[in-house]
């Protein structure tokens, strides 16, 4: 990719984001938000041994706006990786690349290479349907289908034909709800609409729905942003338990949450991956000025 004009890059980033928070952040910390060079190299260990997913030189364009710039990142097996950064820094966009949810947006264009177990998921020949069965996603706002709790969970297994019989399906539903820690709360009202649950329960229902398909990687896009503190605590607890069986990538705007649930943390800024490292190291001893500014609460 040709080196692009710095000024130009900056304006594009701004327009992509078009977010009041970011503009405010810029004003508050002039030094901190100086745009990074286009050939900026991420600080910290982007590569891990035996990665589950591996991204190389990923770029995302919305139309002609450059939203993600040259990101390299590995996601390790059975680990939680948190992606943090100011609003609109591209962390959610990056997350959506990992199971090609960006395909649903017409003007979005992704270049680079993302491998899941050595398979390039942006290969033309690759089919997104099995990919998404392998890489599940939980969204910012709980979005249960307007169906019963049971049908919500059974939807994935049904479309993929994962359960051969009704009994098997019942078992999948129970196991998924149990894993999401929701079974005890809803086992007596499986036939009631999922939209009738509380916000926290709904989000755990969505998580249960995702794990009912038995994916390998779960992507979570600010899963707690719409929840109250108690519900958040439950979901966080759940994430910690799920780590045993799944690989998880979580986007969050809460640094405390990132510190609590993740083992590795990646800090994004204006489309760049600035710094990545062990969560403890990032939060106690950030190496880049921008990371430090962000986690010490100077902006963001």
């Amino acid at each position: 990719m040709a080196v692009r004009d710095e000024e130009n890059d900056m304006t594009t980033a701004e327009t992509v984001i078009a977010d009041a928070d970011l503009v405010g952040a810029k004003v508050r910390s002039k030094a901190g938000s100086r745009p990074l060079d286009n050939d900026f190299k991420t600080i910290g260990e982007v590569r891990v041994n035996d990665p589950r997913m591996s991204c190389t030189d990923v770029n995302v364009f919305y139309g002609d706006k450059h939203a993600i710039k040259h990101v390299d990142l590995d996601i390790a097996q059975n680990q939680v990786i948190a992606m943090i950064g100011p609003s609109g820094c591209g962390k959610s966009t990056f997350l959506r690349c990992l199971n090609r949810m960006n395909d649903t947006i017409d003007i979005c264009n992704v270049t680079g290479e993302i491998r899941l177990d050595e398979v390039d998921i942006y290969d033309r020949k690759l089919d997104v349907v099995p990919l998404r069965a392998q890489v599940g996603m939980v969204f910012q706002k709980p979005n249960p289908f307007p169906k019963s709790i049971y049908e919500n969970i059974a939807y994935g297994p049904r479309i993929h034909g994962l359960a051969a019989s009704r009994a098997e399906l019942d078992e999948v539903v129970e196991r998924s709800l149990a894993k999401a820690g929701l079974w005890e709360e809803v086992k007596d009202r499986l036939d009631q609409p999922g939209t009738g649950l509380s916000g926290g329960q709904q989000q755990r229902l969505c998580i249960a729905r995702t794990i009912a398909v038995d994916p390998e990687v779960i992507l979570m896009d600010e899963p707690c942003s719409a929840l109250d503190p108690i519900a958040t605590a439950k979901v966080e607890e759940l994430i910690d338990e799920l780590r045993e069986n799944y690989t998880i990538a979580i986007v969050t705007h809460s640094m405390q949450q990132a510190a609590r649930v993740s083992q590795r943390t990646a800090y994004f800024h204006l489309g760049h991956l600035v710094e990545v490292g062990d969560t403890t190291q990032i939060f106690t001893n950030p190496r880049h000025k921008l990371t430090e500014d962000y986690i010490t609460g100077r902006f963001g």
Partner: protein
Amino acid sequence: MSEPDKSTARTIDIVEASLKRRYARERRFKLMGLGAVLLGLLFVTLLFFDIVSKGYTAFVQTHIALEVYFDPAVIDPDGKRDMAEIARADFRKIAREPLAKLFPEVTSRGDKRALYSMLSSGAPYQLSKMVMKEPGLIGTRQVVDLVADDDVDMVVKGNIDRNAPAADRRVNDQMIGWISKLEADGVVKKKFNTRFFTNGDSREPELAGIGGAAAGSFYTLLVTLLLSFPIGVAAAVYLEEFAPKNRWTDLIEVNINNLAAVPSIVFGLLGLAMFINLFGLPRSAPLVGGLVLTLMTLPTIIIAARASLKSVPPSIREAALGVGASKMQTVFHHVLPLAMPGMLTGTIIGMAQALGETAPLLMIGMVAFIVDIPGGPLDPSTVLPVQVYLWADSPERAFVERTSAAILVLLAFLIAMNTFAVIMRRRFERRW
């Protein structure tokens, strides 16, 4: 809990195994969708093709060019050039004479009558009009294009198959022979059919025109427009800008939405019971038609006008109120002018609806057979769609082509109105 690796391997295998079937279903679904769209488009094409192919021939009319002798002995025996006298003259004789000359072999009475029936019953009238306009023609010989009868017209245009068995067609072999001879002589002409646009209705297809119906439609729409636009705009302004939000205004709103979906024929019943029986307004008059159509189009106009008022941002109102304008001044000086294009667009669409409406007008008696062209909103008249309905019921083959042509004219008006509305919307569309 199962081992993650083992279970995921299982999942992906199952998913892969069923993929082919799922994609087949996906393709089928997509094809069904495409099929539905294509079917819809096919219907449009079929409808238009059918009507155009049936109707375009009506825009020309077969004429027979004959050398007519304006015989003074017949037209003006006393030579006084008295117009009233001339008008009474037997122009039928004059029109028939050249035909008889062309076919001297036709002698029997029955055959002669058949021969003369090749000319329209309007042909003598055509000659009489010529003489009335220019009395100097009397005594001269002129080649005149006389209107042919509808049967001849149909044969010439090929709508009646000459080779079909004689029992299956309206026109007998003898007449077809005559037509062929006339064609061979080169006196059969097809000319642009101006009568179709200027004449009123007639029992004779070759003389029937949409002029009367068009005038009726014009007066009806005029009444509708004059009533529905101000009332619709006023109602919309009140409901959107002044009305308090209470049960009454809710009721009005629900009412308007429901009125928009009431079958049009019910409005016809209202018109019949209310305007004609109770108020004693004349039947078949464009005035009553306009009143009924006003009530019908009001909901459309009110809904469009309200949407248009809603799109004017509150900041404009605040600005006007801020300089001390009264609420009424704000609305009439600032909001209304800004909302006007949207209101006009809605009104045009409402008018287009009204132009195509038939059923309620049947109820109030606008189905009469009316030859005269109405001169005002109180004269009995019919409208274009009703004319279509009337002609569609007529058995003559030639009326099928007239009906289709009338439909084409009607559709042309509708398309023009809707295009105008779309252009206006594009032109004045404003993003705040």
